[in-house]
């Protein structure tokens, strides 16, 4: 075993890790926003809208992410932008487009879990659809969905490693560049695997903590907000 490669190239590896984290953060924010929109559209009562959203969600969920990344990078984004996109842009767009379909399904199941009484109470207070969604239904649904969302974002972090296949120099690719030169593959790969593990496992511990937390306090907070609004 030859572990010196890691220390000698530590700065390079860390710069790769920074790119991975940037990519993951942007993709988390983007896919959360897009996923909520898709989930609400999927949940909508207007058949055309819920069908279109459903079609997108089902299509995305049934094809591999790597197909998405490659074709957004080589086919879709150049067509839209009129010029070649950077690796980072492509990876980000692909991860958002892919993960938002999964987030949408989580959002939909969260919305379905809302007690009818809440919705009826909000209606009887005279709140319109938008206020009902943003002030009553979504806050409750989102707290219930948090564990599922966190585990989805853990897979997103793991999925960022796929961006290395189109050439983005993130954490995985930076490791590859090092071992392609030094031929100490196993050491670098173990280091990379353990780093991903440290990030993802700490997030999964967080998700477990959130799971065991009762949601009663959050609900009463929503009630307070509702009172102010009415």
């Amino acid at each position, binding site marked *: 075993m030859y572990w010196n490669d890691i220390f000698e190239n530590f700065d390079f590896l860390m710069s790769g890790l920074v790119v991975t984290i940037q990519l993951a953060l942007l993709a988390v924010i983007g896919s959360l926003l897009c996923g909520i929109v898709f989930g609400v559209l999927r949940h909508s009562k207007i058949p055309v809208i819920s069908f279109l959203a459903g079609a997108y969600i089902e*299509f995305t969920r*049934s*094809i*591999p*992410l*790597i*197909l998405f990344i*490659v*074709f957004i990078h*080589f*086919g879709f984004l150049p*067509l839209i932008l009129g010029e070649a996109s950077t690796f980072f842009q492509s990876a980000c767009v692909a991860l958002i487009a892919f993960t938002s379909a999964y987030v949408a399904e989580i959002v939909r199941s969260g919305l379905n879990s809302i007690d009818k009484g809440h919705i009826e109470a909000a209606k009887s207070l005279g709140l319109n659809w938008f206020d009902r969604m943003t002030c009553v239904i979504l806050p409750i649904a989102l707290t219930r969905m948090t564990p599922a969302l966190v585990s989805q974002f*853990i897979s997103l972090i*793991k*999925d960022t*490693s*796929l961006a*290395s*296949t189109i050439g983005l120099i993130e954490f*995985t690719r930076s490791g*590859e560049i090092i*071992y392609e030169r030094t*031929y*100490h*593959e*196993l050491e670098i*790969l*173990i280091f*990379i*695997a*353990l780093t*991903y*593990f440290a990030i*993802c*496992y700490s997030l*999964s511990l967080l998700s477990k903590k959130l799971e065991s937390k009762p949601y009663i306090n959050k609900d009463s907070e929503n009630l307070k907000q509702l009172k102010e609004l009415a």
Partner: protein
Amino acid sequence: MSEFDIKYIVESLPYIAKGIELTIFISIISSILAFAIGITIAFLRRTDIKPMTKLMALFVELTRNTPLLIQLYIYYKGLPSIGLNLSPIACGIISLSIYTGVFISEVFRAGINSIAHEQYQAARGLGLSDFQTFRLIIFPQALRIIIPPLGSQFINLIKNSSLVSFIAVTDLFYVIYKGAVDDFMFFEMFITGALIYMALTGIVALLTNIIEQNLKISGKAGSI
């Protein structure tokens, strides 16, 4: 984007068919292995041997929380440096079945935990051994509950199998990618590839539904 070239797709169908064949082969072998690994880990984590349960828990967390691509690379590029050379397909099958097997073991664990504890006590009270209780009482009941999440793990396996193309296995994604990049047929190949993967995952989803309907005990609600 030039116009959609159907002729190109038709011409490359023989290659695509070979790719599909390999993808299906890898998926089926890995599914069977993953199922076996999943049951084994789930059973070992229930035993009373503390070091074994700890070790299995560590293995599960390590595998679950690292990207599949890295695991593939470890088997394919890492192991040769300690003198273990495996063929690319073998590496693909090993890493896919271990990765999916770990997820399946978690599904099993959730299913087993959802079986009432009295069932276990009653079985032990009737004089069944630990293994017999698992095999005859707990497992059949758990299996019924976990069929939908199990099906989605097999669907994930099919999608994840596309990653083996990065360790030089000429599976479906490899053929699609080659056609797209070498011949600049991005949209043709994307649509073809997406449709084929949709069909493959659709078949598994359909099978899952059929099995679920057949095994369902009428009047008994229970799914996770």
